[in-house]
């Protein structure tokens, strides 16, 4: 088995296109991540159509690069402009920018890069080890358990993202409804097609995603009169010194543990939450908490280690259970669906080459961004000088072409526009869009498994709900909804 695994990894590594597309993805991810306003989710949404015409392994390798690079890239603008490129890098600004204004921008980027590398790599090792264990366990699951898992995933995403719980739930239910549009796979009934032939095969995932994450962002940008920031500071020496490494190695371990822990929970608010928890933890255990916010290496290291460690954590439920935890993993599951692949335990058994290919690409992406961050961050800083409206116009063109190219259908552009407006309006009223996307993905999974389970148990819903593993997931789902309410009521008292 070990010999087989070794030869599998060697065969993946011997393919130049895996290296090349992972590098493209990482560079693209860093570029998108470092530009404020272009999030890693938007990067994946815009660049995902490029991967459709590639072989699944190569396409997913590129997306892994975008995910990893995008999560790291936010730190560059956080340090140089005090504007986090992605929400994940929000806590990097607190110490990164003060360090940069002292003339140590290179040192700050060096610490951020090495910390992101360490955190991310630890999380990928965690992913490889735990996914193997979880998969052995989940192979025992049947449709009833998978239905319960989908319900748990839907509840957790709805409750954690957004200001009002009810808005999150409405968003999820709307997503599930969208998933029902088209021909019912079991009975052939046409559901909610409004008489349109184009809707008979359902709505495609990519135009919805591009509309929600790409066009809605552009609409926000129209009429934005924000002052354009130009980078004028010199970056200087980037490689972190031995003293810096000595002072932050414990932070790396704590940050990685927090990042993985937060990332692994479906419904986590992404890398941003892990950065916040890690930063506050580091401040509370530090002998000099007063130095936080003035440009301390521990502050940068905590935020960056944790936000990149959440990448591996978030991939655990995605790859083993097929449950996306946040916007980016929802987009990644869409990429799997585009290639007719359903992540989960069976994929590990049926297509280990693809799974190990993703692991290899994730590790490669970390080495790529380490190299690029330490030796080419000056180039990425130059991208920040490109005016935002030009980038947004390019996003419009990429989005339009991407929506079309997925199935050579101009109708997809109409879908993209509709969901661009929907996403824009939802954001304006503070209704989260991620639950809608996850509802759209998990809804059909829940429906399909419920129907198969009911057939298996001859319509006995009680038996489906009370199966031991299912019950655990229903209790978790209930706890996720009830506990925050109880906590809120206690706080109000």
């Amino acid at each position, binding site marked *: 088995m070990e010999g087989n695994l070794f030869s599998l990894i060697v065969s993946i590594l011997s393919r130049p296109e895996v290296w090349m597309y992972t590098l493209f993805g990482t560079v693209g991810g860093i570029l998108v991540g470092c530009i404020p306003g272009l999030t890693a989710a938007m990067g994946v949404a815009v660049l995902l159509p490029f991967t459709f015409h590639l072989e699944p392994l190569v396409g997913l390798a590129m997306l892994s690069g975008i995910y990893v690079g995008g999560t790291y890239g936010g730190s560059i603008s956080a340090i140089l402009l005090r504007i986090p490129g992605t929400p994940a890098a929000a806590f990097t600004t607190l110490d990164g920018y003060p360090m940069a204004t002292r003339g140590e921008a290179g040192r700050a980027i060096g610490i951020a890069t090495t910390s992101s590398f360490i955190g991310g790599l630890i999380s990928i090792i965690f992913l490889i080890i735990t996914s193997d264990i979880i998969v052995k366990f989940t192979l025992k699951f049947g449709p009833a358990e998978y239905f319960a898992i989908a319900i748990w995933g839907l509840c957790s995403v709805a409750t954690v993202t957004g200001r009002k719980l009810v808005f999150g739930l409405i968003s999820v*239910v709307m997503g599930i409804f969208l998933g*029902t549009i088209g021909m019912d796979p079991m009975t052939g009934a046409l559901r909610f097609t409004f008489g349109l032939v184009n809707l008979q095969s359902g709505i495609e995932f990519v135009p919805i995603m591009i509309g929600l994450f790409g*066009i809605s962002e552009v609409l926000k940008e129209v009429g934005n009169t924000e002052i354009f920031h130009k980078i004028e500071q010199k970056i200087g020496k980037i490689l972190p010194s031995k003293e810096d490494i000595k002072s932050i190695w414990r932070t790396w371990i704590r940050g990685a543990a927090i990042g993985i822990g937060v990332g692994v929970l479906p419904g986590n608010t992404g890398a941003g939450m892990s950065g916040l928890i890690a930063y506050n933890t580091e401040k509370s255990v530090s002998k000099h908490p007063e130095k936080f916010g003035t440009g301390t290496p521990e502050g940068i290291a905590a935020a960056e280690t944790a936000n990149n460690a959440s990448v591996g954590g978030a991939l655990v439920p995605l790859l083993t259970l097929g449950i996306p935890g946040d916007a980016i993993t929802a987009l990644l599951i869409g990429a799997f669906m585009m290639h007719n692949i359903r992540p989960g335990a069976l994929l590990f058994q049926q297509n280990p080459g693809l799974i190990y290919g993703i692991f290899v690409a994730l590790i490669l992406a970390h080495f790529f961004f380490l190299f690029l961050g330490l030796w080419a961050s000056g180039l990425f800083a130059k991208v920040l000088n490109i005016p935002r409206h*030009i980038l*947004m*116009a390019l996003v419009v*063109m990429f989005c339009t072409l991407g929506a079309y190219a997925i199935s050579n259908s101009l109708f997809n552009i109409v879908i993209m526009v509709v969901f*661009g407006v929907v996403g824009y309006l939802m954001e304006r009223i503070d209704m989260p869009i991620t639950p809608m996307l996850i509802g759209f993905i998990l809804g059909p999974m829940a429906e399909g498994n419920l*129907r198969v389970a009911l*057939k298996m148990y001859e319509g006995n819903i009680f038996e489906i709900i009370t199966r031991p593993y299912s019950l655990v997931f229903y209790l978790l789902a209930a706890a996720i909804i009830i506990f925050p309410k109880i906590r809120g009521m206690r706080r109000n008292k």
Partner: protein
Amino acid sequence: MQIGQTNRKFPWVDLVVILCCWVLASYILFSVKSFVRLTAVVEVVGADTVPRLIAYVLIILGLWLLISSIFLGKNSTTEFEVGKDNFKKAMLLLFLLGYSAVVPIIKFIPGTLLLGVFSLKLLGEQSWKTTFLVSISATLAMYFVFHSLLKVSLP
């Protein structure tokens, strides 16, 4: 113009959301009547079961929002600012819809070039030279990537 504020004005936005939920629920419940039903032996859960469930949940969520937001006034009122440059936003959306209708006639390169020029101007680019340079290079780059590298058949 503001339709709501945080200091508990009437929650118009919540009311609109409630109405949307109920309208959608009514539409679902009306539509499922026409779905084909197979015999119970073949089909324990019909094509209408999950949509019905969605409709009932939407009705309940609408009620929840109605009670918590309008009757009890528990949540802070949802803000909704109409925002600036809505004409430009509408123009951009209309142009995108127009692009999908016109591009099969005028073909990919001229259509995408126009899309680039229009988007750049709407998003605030002043210089015509930059507008054309960026649009032409982006169009050609996309043509190369999609047509030559990814073998996508373009209109």
